[in-house]
């Protein structure tokens, strides 16, 4: 198997595992379909934007949860925003943590919220690493004369 075929195989397997393990869902597939010649870096750009926003929101949540008297409405509104953006790019695990996070906000459960915040951080880091691997493989494929395989 030549290098290009090997890389393409690697990408296909890796991508399949991301879906299988629930890191990404159909919305991510759609995101990839939106990329075209007029915006060849679309997915990378949107994903970067998402990670930036995620960091900001997490910092805001952390600050709010540190307060003597926690404003759970505020925490909830940050979680709601994160849930929305993670959902729209297909970051399934992060979105699911947000769903649980919201119920802890509604129950005004500080411990529960802090646990969810930790989980968000964890999932954020994992997804970042995974997508970086994905993008690197894609770039290597293109550099070796291939084109990114179409999603099913």
């Amino acid at each position, binding site marked *: 198997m030549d290098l290009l075929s090997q890389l393409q195989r690697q990408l296909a397997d890796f991508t399949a595992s991301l879906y299988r393990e629930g890191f990404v869902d159909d919305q991510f597939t759609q995101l990839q379909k939106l990329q*075209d010649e007029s915006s060849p870096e679309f997915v990378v750009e949107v994903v970067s*934007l998402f990670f930036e926003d995620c960091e900001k929101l997490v910092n805001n949540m952390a600050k709010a949860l540190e307060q003597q008297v926690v404003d759970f409405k505020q925490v909830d509104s940050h979680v709601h925003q994160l849930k929305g953006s993670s959902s729209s790019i297909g970051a399934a695990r992060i979105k699911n943590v947000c769903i649980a996070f919201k119920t802890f906000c509604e129950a005004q459960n500080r411990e529960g919220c802090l646990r969810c915040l930790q989980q968000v951080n964890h999932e954020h880091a994992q997804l970042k690493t995974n997508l970086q691997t994905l993008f690197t493989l894609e770039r290597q494929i293109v550099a070796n004369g291939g084109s990114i395989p179409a999603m099913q």
Partner: protein
Amino acid sequence: MSLVLRFQIQLSYGRAIFAPGTSSEQPNSNPHFRGLRVILTDDDDVNRTVTKKLLEKLGCEVTAVSSGFECLSALSSAENSFRLVVLDLQMPEMDGFEVAKRIRKFCSRNWPLIIALTASAEDNIWERCLQMGMNGVIRKPVLLQGMADELRRVLQRAGEGL
């Protein structure tokens, strides 16, 4: 899901422009969306970027803003050249309902057309949107097919039918 089903009943099954599985391969295939001037209002950066691209993929000419104020300002200075407003319902400062209310104060029910974006699963969201003078509702996260279907339905209803 019930929201989607309700709309399906009202669709006229004319030519199937977006046959299942083909919509993503022919992004600008629908002539009725090509050049459609849209103003997209969403305060979330990520959502706004994704929805804008989605609308552009369907052939629309999109101006994206991040607040109700910017939306109203753009509408009032563009001499009514925007055909459609796509509006996130949940925004800080001024929510989508308020924006729609103010638009309808000065503009007729069919120009511009207003489609709401919402993550809400409330049953009465459609009624509330109608009351505010909106023409359509799309559930988030937004899908290409969902957007295309709702755009077509709303345009048809407004008499610019297929």
